[in-house]
């Protein structure tokens, strides 16, 4: 699995994208009287009517708590919840749906691994390896685990091109128990070679934990081909609702893990002094879960599969190449991140000395939504030598003409700030 897919064909033609756009009601909104140009899908994607309708349908027709009810609508709800789990499992080619745990988001999934696997297996003197390009959600849980256990936290550096510097990886992985890394950088758009990194971790005797947040929405993902041990991702970045995400893990690892949170739904036998726990995945889903959100995520998977992940990936790469070409023609624009062959549809930039927040405010006045800030990646920002960047990210509903609007907005910002 890698980002080096041929982009000779755009993946989706103009008519297909217009049909897709018609499924997203929010694209009819006109902020500040301008058409909405949503270039912040890496933070959270928009939702098609199919997802909204599936959740609405659940609430209108068969809302009930799952697993415990013996009546008809509870059965329907339980079946829809478990069907969503099977859909997600198929989507990432998990060997078993039981390996897909519903969590709130990737952050919770990563914390679950750090808490349940980490606190059982990490001892003083062990090493935990992460990379410099991690989102805070795949850095801070490991910092805390290292601090609590006395383990060492080691960092794989990022080179000037925005790629992982793997030259010292063997030394870094020596004695490591965990190698946690992202599949795609949310800041630079760098696509990492997950299969290679997972294999290196395995060879060193470490488990691999993949932040798959940016990968699962935008490229075909096969966790078996990746060969990793855990992968976490959020539903809201892949057309699904907020409040639902997935932690996938190898069954043998999950079965050996103690619970993360405890309470109802995750037990087998409860006595006053002690309890036994349910099997995976229920063991890790304490309390009433986000049922409607799971149903919505299932509908999102259906939608993505109906378009096709290969087509989505190719189209996003085509948009990215167009955007990089256009931005290269604009003076004072500096784009961060690796060359096209190693990236996907996330572009971080600065424009002259305009602060990213000022740029984003001016772009907003043109209806263009970009993210401005450190992208939950403060150490990487320091490395890039900027306090913040503006980040444009593309998805299946974006168009080349929206890139024109972005460019015009950047020119407007340059005008206001007097930059040639």
């Amino acid at each position: 699995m890698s980002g080096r897919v041929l982009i000779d064909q755009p993946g989706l033609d103009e008519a297909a994208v217009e049909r897709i756009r018609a499924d997203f009601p929010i694209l009819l909104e006109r902020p500040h009287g301008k058409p909405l140009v949503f270039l912040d899908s890496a933070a959270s994607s928009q939702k098609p009517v199919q997802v909204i309708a599936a959740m609405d349908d659940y609430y209108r027709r068969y809302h009930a708590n799952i697993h415990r009810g013996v009546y008809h609508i509870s059965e329907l709800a339980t079946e829809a919840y478990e069907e969503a789990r099977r859909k997600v499992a198929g989507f990432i080619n998990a060997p078993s749906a039981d390996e897909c745990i519903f969590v709130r988001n990737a952050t919770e999934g990563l914390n679950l691994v750090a808490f349940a696997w980490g606190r059982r297996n990490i001892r003083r003197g062990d090493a935990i390896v992460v990379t410099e390009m991690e989102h805070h959600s795949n850095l801070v849980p490991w910092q805390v685990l290292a601090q609590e256990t006395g383990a060492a936290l080691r960092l794989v550096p990022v080179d000037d091109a925005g790629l992982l510097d793997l030259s010292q990886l063997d030394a870094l992985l020596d004695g490591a128990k965990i190698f946690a890394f992202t599949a795609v950088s949310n800041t630079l758009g760098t696509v990492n070679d997950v299969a290679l990194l997972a294999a290196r971790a395995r060879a060193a005797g470490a488990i691999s934990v993949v932040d798959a947040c940016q990968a699962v929405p935008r490229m075909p993902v096969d966790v078996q081909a990746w060969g990793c041990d855990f992968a976490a991702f959020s539903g809201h970045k892949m057309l699904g609702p907020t409040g639902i995400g997935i932690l996938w893990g190898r069954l043998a690892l999950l079965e050996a893990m103690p619970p993360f949170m405890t309470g109802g739904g995750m037990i087998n036998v409860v006595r006053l002094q002690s309890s036994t726990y349910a099997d995976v995945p229920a063991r890790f889903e304490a309390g009433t879960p986000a049922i409607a959100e799971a149903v919505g995520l299932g509908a999102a998977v259906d939608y993505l599969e109906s378009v096709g992940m290969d087509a989505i990936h190719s189209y996003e790469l085509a948009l990215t190449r167009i955007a990089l070409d256009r931005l290269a023609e604009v003076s004072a624009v500096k784009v961060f991140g690796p060359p096209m062959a190693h990236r996907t549809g996330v572009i971080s930039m600065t424009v002259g000395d305009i602060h990213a927040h000022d740029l984003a405010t001016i772009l907003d006045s043109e209806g263009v939504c970009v993210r401005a800030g450190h992208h939950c990646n403060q150490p990487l920002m320091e490395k890039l030598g900027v306090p913040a960047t503006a980040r444009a990210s593309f998805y299946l509903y974006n168009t080349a003409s929206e890139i024109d609007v972005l460019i015009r907005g950047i020119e407007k910002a340059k005008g206001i700030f007097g930059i040639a």
Partner: protein
Amino acid sequence: MNDFGGVDDLYRDFILDHYRHPRNAGTLENPDVTFEDNNPLCGDRIRMDVRIAGDRIEDIRFAGRGCAISQASASLLTEAVKGKTVAEVQQLSDDAVLENLGISISAVRLKCALLGIKVLKSALALKR
């Protein structure tokens, strides 16, 4: 949807002037109080050095980096508070600071516009 007069209103010439040429920029040799803070959402950072004579702000400098709104707001603030008493500044409301700024600030940019006064009040609190 509130448009707050648009970006042309936000990025007026005097705001950009204070951003490009901040007043009272730099540090003080022997400040009575110093405080630095940042806005973790966007990385705006401001440090304020204050010299206090009696109960009045005799001199003030600020150093920082960040967006035009945060830096211009801090610059304007330093001009406004010089000669004022510590108590007067501590009682300055956010609204008063925004009024002094003279532009309409949307909710998401409030933290930028108010970072300067937050840092200054924190600095003055060290005096007590």
